[in-house]
């Protein structure tokens, strides 16, 4: 990088749209700055004090003029607002055909998990022209996922998933920053987003990978003895998880919620928060027993579960490493 860039690269269609608004605003501001500065200079020269005895007559204010400069900025402001809001929506709402990647931020690194199993730290490989949705969570304090070339930005919170999506249009390497101050090495919490050609990405994806996230999740599902209760047979003491993701879940207290990433995570860590109608509160909390990456693996597994795919209980399962202490039942 020899030259000094004055403008960030545009590597998504969204970036171009954001820049369009940016340039429009530059135009509007340029106009008003020129207007005010021009008037200041003009008045300063034209009406400079020529004699200390000058007593210019008072000017009565004109209501028309006052209303004019009240009413002219208003529609301009509203226009900008609507434009900005529309961009915000397209930033906030990912398309349906997204490739999903799970992101864990921690002091001071970014960890990525691809559904196919690859894991990366501070480097994120994606394919060009492929919409990508990041489901992000922090293990400690608030971080912020910021890729200037994509014009996207999203705080990464502890305890709750946030998402952001992008569709890169240009292969290349782009800066990834943490922009929310997070402690000592905040400014070392940086990385690179590597956008590859589709074919190269497929090769990269196929290379690493010791099993997909869902497969890892399946192992956990058996290791943690989840299958003991969440079995798909007559002895099931807990809801069947097949085809659960995205479905509406009726709760004991009458509410209905959608089974999304956040719901699954909460149900693993805090099972009593939302008890499914027709079931008892018997599941222990797994808080402190599995980390965010493992939760994401379990979630990926549950997402992949189709009817008949729940592991059988008599399947050979490794003994759990650390069994959660079951809570006293009433």
């Amino acid at each position, binding site marked *: 990088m020899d030259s000094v860039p004055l403008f960030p690269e545009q590597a998504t269609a969204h970036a171009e749209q954001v820049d369009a608004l940016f340039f429009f605003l530059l135009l509007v501001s340029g106009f008003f700055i020129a207007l005010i500065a021009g008037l200041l200079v003009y008045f300063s020269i034209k009406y400079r004090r020529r004699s200390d005895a000058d007593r210019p007559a008072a000017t009565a204010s004109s209501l028309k003029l006052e209303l004019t400069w009240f009413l002219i900025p208003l529609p301009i402001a509203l226009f900008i607002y609507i434009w900005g809001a529309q961009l915000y929506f397209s930033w906030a709402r990912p398309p349906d055909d997204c490739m999903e990647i799970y992101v864990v931020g921690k002091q001071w690194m970014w960890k990525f998990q691809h559904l196919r199993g690859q894991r990366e730290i501070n480097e994120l490989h994606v394919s060009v022209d492929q919409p990508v949705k990041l489901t992000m969570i922090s293990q400690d304090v608030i971080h912020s996922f910021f890729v200037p070339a994509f014009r996207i930005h999203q705080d990464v919170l502890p305890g709750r998933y946030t998402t952001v999506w992008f569709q890169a249009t240009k292969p290349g390497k782009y800066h990834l920053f943490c922009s929310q101050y997070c402690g000592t090495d905040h400014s070392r919490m940086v990385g690179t987003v590597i956008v590859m050609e589709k074919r190269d990405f497929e090769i990269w994806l196929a290379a690493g990978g010791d099993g997909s996230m869902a497969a890892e999740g399946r192992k956990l599902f058996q290791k943690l003895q989840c299958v003991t209760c969440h079995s798909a047979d007559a002895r099931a003491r807990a809801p069947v998880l097949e085809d659960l993701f995205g479905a509406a879940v009726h709760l004991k*207290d009458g509410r209905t919620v959608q089974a999304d990433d956040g719901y699954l995570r909460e149900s693993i860590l*805090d099972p*009593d928060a939302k008890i499914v109608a027709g079931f008892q*509160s018997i599941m222990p909390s797994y808080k402190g027993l599995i980390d965010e990456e493992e939760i994401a693996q379990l979630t990926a597994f549950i997402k992949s579960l189709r009817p008949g795919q729940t592991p059988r209980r008599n399947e050979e399962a490794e003994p759990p490493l650390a069994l959660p202490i079951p*809570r*006293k*039942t*009433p």
Partner: protein
Amino acid sequence: MSANHSSLAHHFADHEQQHEVAVLGMWVFLATELMVFGALFAGYAVYRAQYPAEFAAGSRALNIWFGGINTVVLLSSSLTMALGVHGAQVGRRNVAVMCLALTALLGTAFLVIKGFEYHGDYVEHLVPGLSFSDQDWLGREPHVHPEKVKLFLFFYYTMTGLHGVHLLIGIVFMTVLTILAWRGRFTPQYYGPIEVGGLYWHFVDVVWLFLLPLLYLIGPR
């Protein structure tokens, strides 16, 4: 104009201006105070909406009778306060002194009762940070998440604690006023401090009136 010039500060034109300034100042201050509690109310509202069951359960664990009796004590103190202001206004010194003293006393009674209540909570392991055990709580209400009950209890102690601090300041305020009134410092022309003290006292009372349903009465028992 006034016989008692020492009670008029140099920068005021007359006693009426001085009195109005004092009253206005206190009202403005009370608007500020409202926002202090406002931050707590906002936090309370956010978490109560998120964890209704835990807040109801936490509320059930509190003793409504302590809350009820204390309300009566505080309301009585408000009555004596109002009568005290009136006494000072019409120049009945003895009434004013009696009522102010009684107000301070009732305020103290409130704090003593509150102290017993806190002690009871401590014994029953209801004080997060000092004495709280998840096991005890689960024995009490097994289906309610102790972590979130702690949130409720946190609001309970912060709100009543902040209210208690305000009351304590009020009691000191009243004690000083009682002594000054007893020494004959106030006249029907100059009783601004008593009126202002009264406004403060009533405000602290009003805050409690809202804490009662918010903390003790979330759901039926």
